[in-house]
């Protein structure tokens, strides 16, 4: 394992990473956010969702560097005395979880469909591509709203696991199309290459060829796409939560926090909505920059 990382560090990709200050900064920030999100219960100074620890008298405290700031709550508190910093970490956890899960789902579905469409060709290919076209003609948010909203309406008391499931489903429902198209194109190129023909004439079954020969060679662009789509998924989730059809209120995501804080924006308590917004931007930006770097670093070799 150590050998693998050492080789990677000294390889072309590692060199590209080491010489790109943007990539390293973005990676660092993304890592910090991820760390805080994953280990939120350990890292966060307070637990904002444990009602026993809340003190209503601490509500609406501004951030540390303003007057009335309290060092106990670094970024201030909201209307119920919850620490903003801690809420950010727990919120980031939800956002990242939803973002990563929906990307995983849409990548899995998209890559599989793209592989099949590109390899088999013919009517199946045409059908899958037409489905892609149809999916792309609907705005993402609209579809997600529709599904999440309908789900809410039908099952108002659903357990939060199901709510999350519907949320992840609605975001990944449109995301898979990009993967399918990219993979289909690469598959069609690889299918005609001679190593695939060599496998065919040896008698290897088509499914095995797809899985063992073609798939490893078409995953390059998928990695880049997935990285960039994580940011998109997080923002989509935030939008849905802002609109009220996203994460359930007892496990708020960054979007929910923004929406909740929105009410107090003009009464002067700006920090309740601005900090979750900044956190969202930070995560999305660092992931996007990482994806950009990856695409450029992989590009000359893909050619």
């Amino acid at each position: 394992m150590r050998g693998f990382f050492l080789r990677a560090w000294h390889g072309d990709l590692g060199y590209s990473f080491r010489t790109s200050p943007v990539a390293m900064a973005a990676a660092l920030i993304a890592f910090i956010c991820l760390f805080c999100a994953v280990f939120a219960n350990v890292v966060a100074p307070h637990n904002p969702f444990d009602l026993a620890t809340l003190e209503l008298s601490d509500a609406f405290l501004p951030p540390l560097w303003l007057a009335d700031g309290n060092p106990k709550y670094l970024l201030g508190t909201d209307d119920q005395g919850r620490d903003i910093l801690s809420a950010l970490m727990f919120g980031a956890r939800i956002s990242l979880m939803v973002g990563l899960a929906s990307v995983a789902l849409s990548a899995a579905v998209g890559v599989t469909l793209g592989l099949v469409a590109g390899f088999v060709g013919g009517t199946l290919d045409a059908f899958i591509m037409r489905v892609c076209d149809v999916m792309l003609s609907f705005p993402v948010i609209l579809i997600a709203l529709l599904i999440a909203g309908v789900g809410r309406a039908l099952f108002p008391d659903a357990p939060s696991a199901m709510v999350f499931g519907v949320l992840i489903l609605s975001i990944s429902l449109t995301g898979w199309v990009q993967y399918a198209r990219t993979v289909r194109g690469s598959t069609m190129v690889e299918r005609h290459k001679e190593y695939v023909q060599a496998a065919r004439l040896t008698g290897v079954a088509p499914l095995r060829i797809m899985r063992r020969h073609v798939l490893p060679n078409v995953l390059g662009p998928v990695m880049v796409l997935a990285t960039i789509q994580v940011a998109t998924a997080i923002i989509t989730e935030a939008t849905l939560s802002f609109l009220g059809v996203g994460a359930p209120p007892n496990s708020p995501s960054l979007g929910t926090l923004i929406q909740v804080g929105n009410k107090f924006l003009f009464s002067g308590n700006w920090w309740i909505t601005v900090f979750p917004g900044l956190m969202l931007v930070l995560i999305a930006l660092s992931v996007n920059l990482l994806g950009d770097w990856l695409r450029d670093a992989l590009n000359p070799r893909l050619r």
Partner: protein
Amino acid sequence: MSLIAPQPMPLVQAHDLTKTFDVSPPWLNRVLEGKPRLQLHAVDGVSFEIERGQTLALVGESGCGKSTVARLLVGLYAPTRGGLVFDGQDVHATLNTPRGQALRRRIQMIFQDPYASLNPRWTVEDIVGEPLREQGLTANPADLHARVADLLQSVGLGAMDMAKYPHQFSGGQRQRISIARALGTEPEFLVCDEPTSALDVSVQAQVLNIMKDLQRARGLTYLFISHNLAVVRHVSDQVGVMYLGRLVELADKQTLFARPRHPYTRMLIDAIPKMRDTGRARTPVSGEVPNPLSPPGGCAFHPRCPHANARCTSERPIIQVFSTGRVACHAVQEGRI
């Protein structure tokens, strides 16, 4: 009648091999723009035999169908018409049955592009070992490892190359890895699709020498596809010349180069840049290979042929068999050349 042992049946017999591809525009275009259906006659009525241990070379320029013939022979395509018999078995019928696996073991292929014929993500051991694994020829991983090492050594590479990836090798070495992969199942018949066209001259010499050595050592039969007549002259016993999907001449090597009969063969030989006889006057072939989608009527070569007459424009020549080979040409048949 002298007592001659009966001739063994040729190992490979192709009879009237034909492959047509449907390259019509999509249905919508055909309806809206009134475009007709389009057929590509990639291979049209090709027949030949290859004796065991011999090499038949197929020569031609782009669009002549030689690569399609190669793929028909290994079962990558099914013929539209005609058939292929290998050691007495009908190839395409057998390939679709359970006995097909045994047949696949005996026929293998080497490809033209050393960069595309090896999976860039697999190690050399996996690549060379794949046919062995697929055919279930090895008992366990250690056995496979040993056999792959043997195969690599037989083509002049080493056992330590097994863990490397294709991009760490040069073009000539990759082609040798391809040969090692093809030899894994101990085939009797190797179809080689322009195996040295992408290689430098000195590397080509190495690969051709290896192929000849292997043929002698293992009694292999080759179908060697190339556009390079000089290479063909070096490796083949018999040569077949193809033009626009049809076999125009087939003869043993000496005869073809000394006394080519078909006008296209003559011009092809003449067109090759010669290293030592450069002062001679020659007329290069006029015109270009026509679009295979709309071949000329009658004899496909007639627009470029200096001996074409009216019959050549309308009637397709049939193959005439001579003692030294076969030719499909009206002028030869009529004794005009």
